[in-house]
Protein backbone atom coordinates (compact mmCIF):
# COMPACT_ATOMS: atom_id res chain seq x y z
CA UNK A 1 0.00 0.00 0.00
CA UNK A 2 1.15 3.57 -0.72
CA UNK A 3 2.91 4.90 2.44
CA UNK A 4 0.38 7.70 3.06
CA UNK A 5 -2.51 5.26 2.71
CA UNK A 6 -0.72 2.90 5.10
CA UNK A 7 -0.64 5.68 7.72
CA UNK A 8 -4.37 6.24 7.27
CA UNK A 9 -5.07 2.51 7.38
CA UNK A 10 -3.20 2.26 10.69
CA UNK A 11 -5.53 4.88 12.22
CA UNK A 12 -8.67 2.91 11.45
CA UNK A 13 -10.03 0.40 13.93
CA UNK A 14 -11.18 -3.04 12.78
CA UNK A 15 -14.85 -3.10 11.79
CA UNK A 16 -15.02 0.72 11.57
CA UNK A 17 -17.32 2.55 9.15
CA UNK A 18 -15.17 4.40 6.63
CA UNK A 19 -16.07 6.77 3.80
CA UNK A 20 -13.36 7.55 1.25
CA UNK A 21 -14.13 10.69 -0.76
CA UNK A 22 -12.49 10.51 -4.16
CA UNK A 23 -11.47 6.90 -3.62
CA UNK A 24 -9.65 6.56 -6.95
CA UNK A 25 -8.78 2.95 -7.67
CA UNK A 26 -9.91 1.88 -4.20
CA UNK A 27 -6.48 0.91 -2.87
CA UNK A 28 -7.17 2.11 0.69
CA UNK A 29 -10.59 0.49 0.97
CA UNK A 30 -9.48 -2.79 -0.61
CA UNK A 31 -6.68 -3.01 1.96
CA UNK A 32 -8.97 -2.10 4.86
CA UNK A 33 -11.62 -4.59 3.77
CA UNK A 34 -9.08 -7.40 3.56
CA UNK A 35 -7.17 -6.65 6.76
CA UNK A 36 -9.62 -4.90 9.07
CA UNK A 37 -13.07 -6.00 7.90
CA UNK A 38 -14.18 -2.38 7.75
CA UNK A 39 -17.58 -1.38 6.41
CA UNK A 40 -16.17 1.02 3.84
CA UNK A 41 -17.54 2.98 0.90
CA UNK A 42 -15.73 5.05 -1.68
CA UNK A 43 -17.15 7.89 -3.75
CA UNK A 44 -15.76 8.67 -7.19
CA UNK A 45 -16.96 9.92 -10.57
CA UNK A 46 -14.26 8.63 -12.90
CA UNK A 47 -15.60 5.69 -14.96
CA UNK A 48 -12.15 4.06 -15.20
CA UNK A 49 -11.66 4.28 -11.43
CA UNK A 50 -15.14 2.90 -10.79
CA UNK A 51 -14.50 -0.05 -13.10
CA UNK A 52 -11.25 -0.84 -11.25
CA UNK A 53 -12.99 -0.59 -7.85
CA UNK A 54 -15.72 -2.97 -9.03
CA UNK A 55 -13.11 -5.53 -10.09
CA UNK A 56 -11.42 -5.21 -6.67
CA UNK A 57 -14.69 -5.75 -4.82
CA UNK A 58 -14.65 -2.26 -3.32
CA UNK A 59 -17.99 -0.62 -2.46
CA UNK A 60 -17.75 2.22 -4.94
CA UNK A 61 -20.60 4.71 -5.29
CA UNK A 62 -20.75 7.09 -8.23
CA UNK A 63 -21.31 10.49 -6.64
CA UNK A 64 -19.98 13.93 -7.47
CA UNK A 65 -18.48 15.51 -4.34
CA UNK A 66 -19.34 19.01 -5.57
CA UNK A 67 -23.02 18.11 -5.35
CA UNK A 68 -22.56 17.78 -1.60
CA UNK A 69 -22.83 15.01 0.94
CA UNK A 70 -26.30 15.85 2.22
CA UNK A 71 -27.46 12.30 1.48
CA UNK A 72 -25.34 11.06 4.39
CA UNK A 73 -26.82 11.48 7.89
CA UNK A 74 -24.88 12.99 10.83
CA UNK A 75 -22.45 10.60 12.54
CA UNK A 76 -22.87 7.91 9.91
CA UNK A 77 -19.13 7.11 9.72
CA UNK A 78 -16.27 6.62 12.17
CA UNK A 79 -13.75 8.06 9.73
CA UNK A 80 -14.11 10.12 6.56
CA UNK A 81 -11.01 10.14 4.38
CA UNK A 82 -10.08 12.45 1.53
CA UNK A 83 -6.68 11.93 -0.05
CA UNK A 84 -5.32 14.58 -2.39
CA UNK A 85 -8.80 15.67 -3.45
CA UNK A 86 -9.60 18.64 -1.17
CA UNK A 87 -7.76 21.00 -3.52
CA UNK A 88 -10.04 20.05 -6.41
CA UNK A 89 -13.45 20.50 -4.78
CA UNK A 90 -15.46 23.64 -5.33
CA UNK A 91 -15.93 24.55 -1.65
CA UNK A 92 -13.11 23.04 0.46
CA UNK A 93 -14.08 24.77 3.73
CA UNK A 94 -17.68 23.57 3.41
CA UNK A 95 -16.37 20.13 2.55
CA UNK A 96 -14.44 19.97 5.82
CA UNK A 97 -17.62 20.89 7.74
CA UNK A 98 -19.51 18.14 5.96
CA UNK A 99 -16.78 15.56 6.56
CA UNK A 100 -16.89 16.26 10.29
CA UNK A 101 -20.68 16.27 10.33
CA UNK A 102 -21.02 12.78 8.90
CA UNK A 103 -17.80 11.39 10.43
CA UNK A 104 -16.49 11.39 13.97
CA UNK A 105 -13.04 12.20 12.61
CA UNK A 106 -11.57 12.88 9.24
CA UNK A 107 -8.26 12.63 7.45
CA UNK A 108 -7.35 14.98 4.64
CA UNK A 109 -4.20 15.06 2.57
CA UNK A 110 -3.27 17.67 -0.02
CA UNK A 111 -0.26 18.84 -2.04
CA UNK A 112 1.55 21.63 -0.14
CA UNK A 113 1.89 24.65 -2.39
CA UNK A 114 4.39 26.11 0.10
CA UNK A 115 6.99 23.47 -0.77
CA UNK A 116 10.35 25.02 -1.63
CA UNK A 117 10.23 23.66 -5.15
CA UNK A 118 6.95 25.45 -5.86
CA UNK A 119 8.33 28.66 -4.39
CA UNK A 120 11.57 28.26 -6.37
CA UNK A 121 9.68 27.55 -9.59
CA UNK A 122 7.54 30.65 -9.19
CA UNK A 123 10.45 32.79 -7.98
CA UNK A 124 12.94 31.82 -10.69
CA UNK A 125 10.78 31.04 -13.70
CA UNK A 126 7.89 33.30 -12.84
CA UNK A 127 5.49 30.53 -13.86
CA UNK A 128 2.90 28.41 -12.06
CA UNK A 129 4.74 25.52 -10.43
CA UNK A 130 4.61 22.05 -11.90
CA UNK A 131 6.10 19.07 -10.13
CA UNK A 132 5.71 15.33 -9.63
CA UNK A 133 2.82 15.89 -7.21
CA UNK A 134 1.46 18.87 -9.23
CA UNK A 135 1.71 17.61 -12.80
CA UNK A 136 -0.96 19.78 -14.47
CA UNK A 137 -0.63 22.98 -16.46
CA UNK A 138 -2.50 25.92 -14.86
CA UNK A 139 -5.35 25.94 -17.41
CA UNK A 140 -5.86 22.22 -17.36
CA UNK A 141 -5.72 21.31 -13.71
CA UNK A 142 -8.37 19.84 -11.43
CA UNK A 143 -6.53 21.56 -8.59
CA UNK A 144 -8.53 24.78 -8.28
CA UNK A 145 -7.96 25.35 -4.55
CA UNK A 146 -4.28 24.80 -3.86
CA UNK A 147 -3.04 25.91 -0.45
CA UNK A 148 0.00 25.74 1.81
CA UNK A 149 0.39 24.01 5.16
CA UNK A 150 0.09 27.42 6.82
CA UNK A 151 -3.08 28.27 4.88
CA UNK A 152 -4.71 25.02 5.87
CA UNK A 153 -3.83 25.36 9.53
CA UNK A 154 -5.23 28.86 9.55
CA UNK A 155 -8.54 27.56 8.16
CA UNK A 156 -8.57 24.76 10.75
CA UNK A 157 -7.88 27.30 13.51
CA UNK A 158 -10.62 29.67 12.26
CA UNK A 159 -13.07 26.78 12.29
CA UNK A 160 -11.88 25.62 15.72
CA UNK A 161 -11.10 22.15 14.37
CA UNK A 162 -8.92 19.90 16.48
CA UNK A 163 -5.71 18.87 14.70
CA UNK A 164 -5.18 15.43 16.19
CA UNK A 165 -2.22 14.55 14.03
CA UNK A 166 -0.11 16.25 11.38
CA UNK A 167 2.41 14.67 9.10
CA UNK A 168 4.19 15.79 5.95
CA UNK A 169 5.89 13.71 3.29
CA UNK A 170 7.78 14.08 0.04
CA UNK A 171 6.21 13.52 -3.34
CA UNK A 172 7.17 9.86 -2.82
CA UNK A 173 4.81 9.86 0.18
CA UNK A 174 7.73 9.20 2.56
CA UNK A 175 8.73 11.35 5.50
CA UNK A 176 12.25 12.74 5.96
CA UNK A 177 13.52 14.42 9.17
CA UNK A 178 13.84 17.89 7.64
CA UNK A 179 10.15 17.88 6.75
CA UNK A 180 8.98 17.61 10.33
CA UNK A 181 11.23 20.52 11.21
CA UNK A 182 9.97 22.88 8.50
CA UNK A 183 6.82 21.27 7.08
CA UNK A 184 5.64 24.22 5.00
CA UNK A 185 9.00 24.43 3.23
CA UNK A 186 9.98 20.78 2.84
CA UNK A 187 6.70 18.86 2.82
CA UNK A 188 5.26 18.06 -0.61
CA UNK A 189 2.19 16.24 0.70
CA UNK A 190 0.48 17.31 3.92
CA UNK A 191 -1.60 14.95 6.01
CA UNK A 192 -4.05 16.01 8.73
CA UNK A 193 -6.20 14.02 11.09
CA UNK A 194 -8.95 16.31 12.33
CA UNK A 195 -11.61 16.19 15.02
CA UNK A 196 -14.71 18.29 15.60
CA UNK A 197 -14.41 21.63 17.39
CA UNK A 198 -14.23 21.30 21.18
CA UNK A 199 -17.41 22.52 22.80
CA UNK A 200 -16.66 25.48 25.08
Amino acid sequence: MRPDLKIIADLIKPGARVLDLGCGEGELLAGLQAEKQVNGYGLDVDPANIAICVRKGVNVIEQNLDQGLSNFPDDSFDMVVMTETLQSVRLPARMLDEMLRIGQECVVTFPNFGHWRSRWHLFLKGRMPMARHLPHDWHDTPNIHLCTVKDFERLARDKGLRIIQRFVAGADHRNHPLMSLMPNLFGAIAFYRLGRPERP
Partner: protein
Amino acid sequence: MAKHPAHEGSVGIVAPQRVHVPGEFALQCGESLDGFELVFETYGQLNAARSNAVLICHALSGNHHAAGYHAEEDAKPGWWDACIGPGKAVDTERFFVVSPNNLGGCHGSTGPATVNPATGEVFGPAFPTVTVKDWVRSQALLADHLDIERFAAVVGGSLGGMQAMQWAIDLPERVGAAALIASAAKLSAQNIAFNEIARQAITSDPQYRDGHYRSANANPEMGLGLARMIGHVTYLSDFGMGQRFGRELKSGDLSAARDVEFQVQSYLRHQGRSFSQRFDANTYLLMTRALDFFDPAGERGGDLVAALEQARSDFLVLSFSTDWRFSAARSKEIVDALIAARKNVVSAVIDSEHGHDSFLLPLPRYISVFKGYMDRLADAAEAGSADAA
Protein backbone atom coordinates in the same frame (compact mmCIF):
# COMPACT_ATOMS: atom_id res chain seq x y z
CA MET B 1 -24.66 -27.65 -31.79
CA ALA B 2 -23.46 -25.38 -34.57
CA LYS B 3 -24.91 -21.92 -34.37
CA HIS B 4 -26.75 -20.14 -37.11
CA PRO B 5 -24.35 -17.41 -38.33
CA ALA B 6 -26.77 -14.66 -37.22
CA HIS B 7 -26.91 -16.21 -33.74
CA GLU B 8 -23.15 -15.90 -33.15
CA GLY B 9 -22.41 -14.53 -29.67
CA SER B 10 -25.75 -15.67 -28.31
CA VAL B 11 -26.71 -18.79 -26.34
CA GLY B 12 -28.13 -20.12 -29.62
CA ILE B 13 -31.37 -22.06 -29.89
CA VAL B 14 -33.19 -22.41 -26.58
CA ALA B 15 -36.42 -24.13 -25.60
CA PRO B 16 -38.81 -23.18 -22.80
CA GLN B 17 -39.43 -25.63 -19.95
CA ARG B 18 -42.38 -25.89 -17.64
CA VAL B 19 -42.89 -26.78 -13.99
CA HIS B 20 -46.16 -27.59 -12.27
CA VAL B 21 -46.16 -26.67 -8.58
CA PRO B 22 -48.99 -28.59 -6.91
CA GLY B 23 -50.87 -27.64 -3.75
CA GLU B 24 -52.42 -24.49 -2.42
CA PHE B 25 -50.43 -21.33 -3.10
CA ALA B 26 -51.67 -18.59 -0.79
CA LEU B 27 -51.30 -15.10 -2.22
CA GLN B 28 -50.70 -11.87 -0.32
CA CYS B 29 -54.17 -10.62 -1.30
CA GLY B 30 -55.79 -13.40 0.76
CA GLU B 31 -56.88 -15.52 -2.19
CA SER B 32 -55.05 -18.66 -3.24
CA LEU B 33 -54.32 -20.74 -6.31
CA ASP B 34 -54.80 -24.49 -6.43
CA GLY B 35 -51.36 -25.18 -7.85
CA PHE B 36 -49.73 -23.22 -10.65
CA GLU B 37 -47.41 -23.57 -13.59
CA LEU B 38 -44.37 -21.54 -14.46
CA VAL B 39 -42.71 -21.54 -17.85
CA PHE B 40 -38.99 -20.79 -17.80
CA GLU B 41 -35.77 -21.01 -19.77
CA THR B 42 -32.28 -21.87 -18.57
CA TYR B 43 -28.92 -21.05 -20.14
CA GLY B 44 -25.50 -22.45 -19.23
CA GLN B 45 -24.62 -25.29 -16.88
CA LEU B 46 -25.21 -25.64 -13.15
CA ASN B 47 -21.89 -26.52 -11.51
CA ALA B 48 -21.34 -29.45 -9.14
CA ALA B 49 -21.63 -27.27 -6.04
CA ARG B 50 -24.84 -25.73 -7.46
CA SER B 51 -23.31 -22.36 -6.61
CA ASN B 52 -23.40 -20.57 -9.97
CA ALA B 53 -27.14 -20.04 -10.50
CA VAL B 54 -28.46 -16.62 -11.47
CA LEU B 55 -32.15 -15.73 -11.48
CA ILE B 56 -33.34 -13.23 -14.08
CA CYS B 57 -36.50 -11.31 -13.15
CA HIS B 58 -38.42 -9.71 -16.00
CA ALA B 59 -40.11 -6.33 -16.15
CA LEU B 60 -43.66 -5.26 -16.96
CA SER B 61 -43.98 -6.66 -20.46
CA GLY B 62 -41.16 -9.21 -20.35
CA ASN B 63 -41.25 -12.98 -20.28
CA HIS B 64 -39.08 -16.07 -19.83
CA HIS B 65 -37.39 -15.70 -23.23
CA ALA B 66 -34.49 -13.52 -22.11
CA ALA B 67 -31.70 -14.77 -24.39
CA GLY B 68 -31.03 -16.79 -27.53
CA TYR B 69 -33.49 -17.81 -30.22
CA HIS B 70 -36.43 -20.21 -30.31
CA ALA B 71 -35.88 -21.09 -33.97
CA GLU B 72 -33.30 -20.72 -36.71
CA GLU B 73 -35.46 -18.20 -38.54
CA ASP B 74 -36.14 -15.96 -35.50
CA ALA B 75 -35.19 -12.40 -36.43
CA LYS B 76 -34.93 -11.19 -32.83
CA PRO B 77 -33.32 -12.84 -29.80
CA GLY B 78 -34.71 -12.83 -26.25
CA TRP B 79 -35.34 -9.47 -24.58
CA TRP B 80 -32.05 -9.27 -22.62
CA ASP B 81 -29.73 -10.92 -25.14
CA ALA B 82 -27.52 -7.79 -24.90
CA CYS B 83 -26.61 -8.82 -21.35
CA ILE B 84 -27.03 -12.61 -21.20
CA GLY B 85 -24.88 -14.97 -23.26
CA PRO B 86 -21.37 -16.34 -23.70
CA GLY B 87 -18.87 -13.70 -22.56
CA LYS B 88 -21.63 -11.18 -21.85
CA ALA B 89 -22.37 -9.40 -18.55
CA VAL B 90 -24.26 -12.44 -17.29
CA ASP B 91 -21.81 -14.92 -18.78
CA THR B 92 -23.54 -18.19 -19.67
CA GLU B 93 -20.16 -19.93 -19.90
CA ARG B 94 -19.84 -19.36 -16.15
CA PHE B 95 -23.37 -19.00 -14.77
CA PHE B 96 -26.45 -21.20 -14.87
CA VAL B 97 -29.15 -18.70 -15.73
CA VAL B 98 -32.80 -19.29 -14.81
CA SER B 99 -35.38 -17.02 -16.43
CA PRO B 100 -39.06 -17.59 -15.58
CA ASN B 101 -42.25 -15.98 -16.85
CA ASN B 102 -43.93 -14.53 -13.78
CA LEU B 103 -47.10 -15.84 -12.24
CA GLY B 104 -49.96 -13.92 -13.82
CA GLY B 105 -48.03 -13.59 -17.07
CA CYS B 106 -49.37 -14.35 -20.50
CA HIS B 107 -46.56 -16.36 -22.09
CA GLY B 108 -47.18 -19.78 -20.58
CA SER B 109 -47.21 -19.33 -16.81
CA THR B 110 -50.49 -19.54 -14.93
CA GLY B 111 -52.30 -16.25 -15.43
CA PRO B 112 -55.55 -14.58 -16.41
CA ALA B 113 -55.57 -16.39 -19.78
CA THR B 114 -55.25 -19.82 -18.10
CA VAL B 115 -58.21 -22.11 -17.47
CA ASN B 116 -59.19 -22.10 -13.80
CA PRO B 117 -59.27 -25.79 -12.75
CA ALA B 118 -62.06 -25.04 -10.25
CA THR B 119 -64.48 -23.64 -12.84
CA GLY B 120 -63.21 -25.06 -16.10
CA GLU B 121 -63.25 -21.52 -17.53
CA VAL B 122 -60.58 -18.98 -18.26
CA PHE B 123 -59.65 -16.95 -15.13
CA GLY B 124 -59.92 -13.65 -16.96
CA PRO B 125 -60.51 -10.70 -14.62
CA ALA B 126 -61.12 -13.13 -11.73
CA PHE B 127 -57.42 -13.97 -11.58
CA PRO B 128 -56.30 -12.84 -8.14
CA THR B 129 -54.09 -9.84 -7.50
CA VAL B 130 -50.44 -10.88 -7.52
CA THR B 131 -47.67 -8.93 -5.79
CA VAL B 132 -43.90 -8.80 -6.10
CA LYS B 133 -43.73 -10.78 -2.82
CA ASP B 134 -45.90 -13.51 -4.40
CA TRP B 135 -43.58 -13.62 -7.40
CA VAL B 136 -40.57 -14.06 -5.14
CA ARG B 137 -42.22 -16.98 -3.32
CA SER B 138 -43.29 -18.61 -6.59
CA GLN B 139 -39.80 -18.18 -8.06
CA ALA B 140 -38.35 -19.77 -4.89
CA LEU B 141 -40.54 -22.83 -5.54
CA LEU B 142 -39.08 -22.98 -9.05
CA ALA B 143 -35.61 -22.83 -7.46
CA ASP B 144 -36.60 -25.73 -5.17
CA HIS B 145 -37.71 -27.69 -8.25
CA LEU B 146 -34.30 -27.07 -9.83
CA ASP B 147 -32.59 -27.95 -6.53
CA ILE B 148 -31.00 -24.51 -6.24
CA GLU B 149 -30.62 -23.59 -2.58
CA ARG B 150 -29.06 -20.19 -3.17
CA PHE B 151 -28.68 -17.93 -6.19
CA ALA B 152 -25.25 -16.38 -6.74
CA ALA B 153 -27.26 -13.41 -7.96
CA VAL B 154 -30.83 -12.32 -8.52
CA VAL B 155 -30.83 -9.81 -11.36
CA GLY B 156 -33.44 -7.55 -12.86
CA GLY B 157 -34.15 -4.21 -14.51
CA SER B 158 -37.11 -1.96 -13.70
CA LEU B 159 -39.87 -4.14 -12.17
CA GLY B 160 -37.32 -6.98 -12.35
CA GLY B 161 -35.01 -5.00 -10.05
CA MET B 162 -37.88 -4.69 -7.60
CA GLN B 163 -38.18 -8.49 -7.52
CA ALA B 164 -34.43 -8.76 -6.91
CA MET B 165 -34.76 -6.33 -3.98
CA GLN B 166 -37.71 -8.27 -2.56
CA TRP B 167 -35.72 -11.53 -2.87
CA ALA B 168 -32.88 -10.01 -0.85
CA ILE B 169 -35.30 -8.87 1.87
CA ASP B 170 -37.65 -11.88 2.03
CA LEU B 171 -35.22 -14.75 1.40
CA PRO B 172 -31.88 -13.35 2.57
CA GLU B 173 -30.19 -16.73 2.93
CA ARG B 174 -30.94 -17.63 -0.68
CA VAL B 175 -29.36 -14.59 -2.42
CA GLY B 176 -25.65 -13.92 -2.84
CA ALA B 177 -26.05 -10.60 -4.61
CA ALA B 178 -28.98 -8.56 -5.88
CA ALA B 179 -28.57 -6.46 -9.02
CA LEU B 180 -31.13 -3.66 -9.23
CA ILE B 181 -30.97 -1.89 -12.57
CA ALA B 182 -33.04 1.20 -13.48
CA SER B 183 -35.30 0.41 -10.57
CA ALA B 184 -36.90 2.09 -7.55
CA ALA B 185 -37.85 1.23 -3.97
CA LYS B 186 -41.47 2.15 -4.72
CA LEU B 187 -43.45 3.96 -7.35
CA SER B 188 -43.96 7.71 -7.19
CA ALA B 189 -47.40 9.27 -7.57
CA GLN B 190 -46.39 10.18 -11.13
CA ASN B 191 -45.47 6.54 -11.90
CA ILE B 192 -48.82 5.35 -10.53
CA ALA B 193 -50.59 8.05 -12.53
CA PHE B 194 -49.10 6.77 -15.80
CA ASN B 195 -50.07 3.21 -14.85
CA GLU B 196 -53.61 4.38 -14.10
CA ILE B 197 -53.93 6.07 -17.50
CA ALA B 198 -52.76 2.83 -19.11
CA ARG B 199 -55.30 0.81 -17.14
CA GLN B 200 -58.09 3.24 -17.99
CA ALA B 201 -57.17 2.96 -21.65
CA ILE B 202 -57.68 -0.80 -21.47
CA THR B 203 -60.78 -0.96 -19.29
CA SER B 204 -62.59 1.79 -21.22
CA ASP B 205 -62.16 -0.06 -24.52
CA PRO B 206 -65.62 -1.53 -25.30
CA GLN B 207 -63.88 -4.72 -26.41
CA TYR B 208 -62.53 -5.19 -22.88
CA ARG B 209 -66.01 -6.36 -21.80
CA ASP B 210 -65.20 -6.14 -18.08
CA GLY B 211 -62.28 -8.47 -18.68
CA HIS B 212 -64.32 -11.26 -20.30
CA TYR B 213 -63.06 -10.52 -23.80
CA ARG B 214 -61.67 -14.02 -24.38
CA SER B 215 -64.99 -15.81 -23.97
CA ALA B 216 -66.41 -13.32 -26.50
CA ASN B 217 -63.47 -13.97 -28.84
CA ALA B 218 -62.57 -10.30 -28.60
CA ASN B 219 -59.39 -8.37 -27.76
CA PRO B 220 -59.28 -4.78 -26.48
CA GLU B 221 -56.65 -3.94 -29.08
CA MET B 222 -57.22 -0.22 -29.03
CA GLY B 223 -56.97 0.06 -25.26
CA LEU B 224 -53.99 -2.27 -24.92
CA GLY B 225 -52.22 -0.54 -27.79
CA LEU B 226 -52.85 2.85 -26.21
CA ALA B 227 -51.55 1.56 -22.85
CA ARG B 228 -48.38 0.43 -24.58
CA MET B 229 -47.97 3.78 -26.31
CA ILE B 230 -48.21 5.60 -22.97
CA GLY B 231 -45.71 3.20 -21.42
CA HIS B 232 -43.39 3.47 -24.38
CA VAL B 233 -43.16 7.26 -24.13
CA THR B 234 -42.02 6.88 -20.51
CA TYR B 235 -39.35 4.34 -21.53
CA LEU B 236 -37.63 6.77 -23.90
CA SER B 237 -36.03 10.14 -23.22
CA ASP B 238 -37.03 13.43 -24.80
CA PHE B 239 -33.53 13.71 -26.26
CA GLY B 240 -33.51 10.12 -27.52
CA MET B 241 -36.90 10.51 -29.21
CA GLY B 242 -35.72 13.74 -30.77
CA GLN B 243 -32.60 12.05 -32.11
CA ARG B 244 -34.55 9.16 -33.51
CA PHE B 245 -37.67 10.83 -34.91
CA GLY B 246 -37.22 14.57 -34.62
CA ARG B 247 -40.17 16.24 -36.32
CA GLU B 248 -39.74 14.24 -39.51
CA LEU B 249 -42.86 14.17 -41.63
CA LYS B 250 -43.69 10.91 -43.31
CA SER B 251 -44.57 12.48 -46.62
CA GLY B 252 -42.43 15.56 -46.17
CA ASP B 253 -45.25 17.62 -47.59
CA LEU B 254 -47.82 19.52 -45.53
CA SER B 255 -50.31 19.70 -48.41
CA ALA B 256 -50.51 15.90 -48.33
CA ALA B 257 -50.85 15.83 -44.52
CA ARG B 258 -53.10 13.12 -43.22
CA ASP B 259 -53.86 11.64 -39.83
CA VAL B 260 -50.49 9.98 -39.25
CA GLU B 261 -47.99 12.57 -40.33
CA PHE B 262 -45.00 12.56 -37.96
CA GLN B 263 -42.61 9.61 -37.84
CA VAL B 264 -43.05 9.31 -34.09
CA GLN B 265 -46.80 8.84 -34.53
CA SER B 266 -46.43 5.90 -36.87
CA TYR B 267 -43.72 4.42 -34.62
CA LEU B 268 -45.96 4.57 -31.54
CA ARG B 269 -48.94 3.19 -33.43
CA HIS B 270 -46.85 0.31 -34.68
CA GLN B 271 -45.59 -0.38 -31.14
CA GLY B 272 -49.14 -0.31 -29.78
CA ARG B 273 -50.51 -2.53 -32.53
CA SER B 274 -47.86 -5.22 -32.32
CA PHE B 275 -48.00 -5.25 -28.52
CA SER B 276 -51.78 -5.74 -28.51
CA GLN B 277 -51.28 -8.88 -30.61
CA ARG B 278 -48.80 -10.53 -28.25
CA PHE B 279 -49.89 -9.41 -24.79
CA ASP B 280 -52.93 -10.13 -22.65
CA ALA B 281 -54.86 -7.11 -21.39
CA ASN B 282 -55.69 -8.67 -18.00
CA THR B 283 -52.02 -9.52 -17.49
CA TYR B 284 -51.10 -5.92 -18.27
CA LEU B 285 -53.53 -4.70 -15.60
CA LEU B 286 -52.16 -7.27 -13.13
CA MET B 287 -48.53 -6.34 -13.77
CA THR B 288 -49.13 -2.60 -13.42
CA ARG B 289 -50.95 -3.20 -10.12
CA ALA B 290 -48.02 -5.28 -8.84
CA LEU B 291 -45.79 -2.34 -9.71
CA ASP B 292 -48.06 0.13 -7.89
CA PHE B 293 -48.26 -1.99 -4.72
CA PHE B 294 -44.51 -2.69 -4.49
CA ASP B 295 -43.25 -1.04 -1.31
CA PRO B 296 -40.94 -3.19 0.85
CA ALA B 297 -40.44 -0.28 3.27
CA GLY B 298 -44.21 0.00 3.75
CA GLU B 299 -44.25 -3.14 5.91
CA ARG B 300 -41.79 -1.44 8.25
CA GLY B 301 -43.46 1.90 8.69
CA GLY B 302 -41.90 3.35 5.56
CA ASP B 303 -38.38 2.66 6.80
CA LEU B 304 -36.41 1.40 3.78
CA VAL B 305 -33.24 1.05 5.87
CA ALA B 306 -35.04 -1.31 8.28
CA ALA B 307 -36.35 -3.30 5.30
CA LEU B 308 -32.91 -3.62 3.72
CA GLU B 309 -31.30 -4.56 7.04
CA GLN B 310 -33.05 -7.94 6.58
CA ALA B 311 -30.88 -8.62 3.53
CA ARG B 312 -27.68 -10.66 3.72
CA SER B 313 -26.67 -10.13 0.10
CA ASP B 314 -24.43 -7.65 -1.64
CA PHE B 315 -26.00 -5.17 -4.03
CA LEU B 316 -25.34 -3.65 -7.44
CA VAL B 317 -27.45 -0.57 -8.18
CA LEU B 318 -27.27 0.93 -11.68
CA SER B 319 -29.22 3.81 -13.15
CA PHE B 320 -29.18 5.87 -16.33
CA SER B 321 -28.79 9.62 -16.73
CA THR B 322 -31.85 10.23 -18.94
CA ASP B 323 -34.19 7.69 -17.32
CA TRP B 324 -37.19 9.63 -16.05
CA ARG B 325 -39.44 6.64 -15.35
CA PHE B 326 -37.16 5.39 -12.57
CA SER B 327 -34.59 8.17 -12.44
CA ALA B 328 -31.06 8.04 -11.05
CA ALA B 329 -32.40 9.85 -7.97
CA ARG B 330 -34.65 6.84 -7.24
CA SER B 331 -31.65 4.51 -7.39
CA LYS B 332 -29.78 6.92 -5.12
CA GLU B 333 -32.51 6.49 -2.49
CA ILE B 334 -31.84 2.75 -2.56
CA VAL B 335 -28.08 3.25 -2.37
CA ASP B 336 -28.32 5.65 0.60
CA ALA B 337 -30.56 3.19 2.44
CA LEU B 338 -28.17 0.32 1.67
CA ILE B 339 -25.23 2.31 3.05
CA ALA B 340 -27.22 3.16 6.19
CA ALA B 341 -28.09 -0.56 6.49
CA ARG B 342 -24.35 -1.34 6.21
CA LYS B 343 -24.72 -3.49 3.10
CA ASN B 344 -22.04 -3.91 0.48
CA VAL B 345 -23.10 -1.90 -2.53
CA VAL B 346 -21.65 -0.83 -5.85
CA SER B 347 -23.46 1.93 -7.68
CA ALA B 348 -23.00 3.77 -10.96
CA VAL B 349 -25.01 6.26 -12.97
CA ILE B 350 -24.52 5.43 -16.64
CA ASP B 351 -24.53 8.30 -19.09
CA SER B 352 -27.04 7.34 -21.76
CA GLU B 353 -29.46 9.13 -24.05
CA HIS B 354 -31.86 6.20 -24.23
CA GLY B 355 -33.93 6.77 -21.08
CA HIS B 356 -35.39 3.85 -19.14
CA ASP B 357 -34.86 1.44 -22.05
CA SER B 358 -31.09 1.87 -21.59
CA PHE B 359 -31.02 -1.17 -19.34
CA LEU B 360 -31.83 -3.37 -22.33
CA LEU B 361 -29.03 -1.98 -24.52
CA PRO B 362 -25.37 -2.97 -24.92
CA LEU B 363 -23.97 0.40 -23.77
CA PRO B 364 -20.21 -0.05 -23.28
CA ARG B 365 -19.88 1.57 -19.86
CA TYR B 366 -23.04 -0.12 -18.56
CA ILE B 367 -21.80 -3.53 -19.68
CA SER B 368 -18.33 -2.86 -18.27
CA VAL B 369 -19.63 -2.18 -14.74
CA PHE B 370 -22.32 -4.88 -14.90
CA LYS B 371 -19.92 -7.49 -16.27
CA GLY B 372 -17.13 -6.47 -13.86
CA TYR B 373 -19.51 -7.04 -10.97
CA MET B 374 -20.91 -10.33 -12.27
CA ASP B 375 -17.44 -11.67 -13.11
CA ARG B 376 -16.44 -11.30 -9.46
CA LEU B 377 -19.51 -13.26 -8.44
CA ALA B 378 -18.58 -15.94 -10.97
CA ASP B 379 -15.05 -16.07 -9.53
CA ALA B 380 -16.53 -16.56 -6.05
CA ALA B 381 -18.95 -19.24 -7.29
CA GLU B 382 -16.12 -21.10 -9.01
CA ALA B 383 -13.90 -20.84 -5.91
CA GLY B 384 -16.80 -22.23 -3.84
CA SER B 385 -17.26 -25.02 -6.36
CA ALA B 386 -13.55 -25.91 -6.22
CA ASP B 387 -13.74 -26.07 -2.40
CA ALA B 388 -16.75 -28.36 -2.61
CA ALA B 389 -14.95 -30.65 -5.06
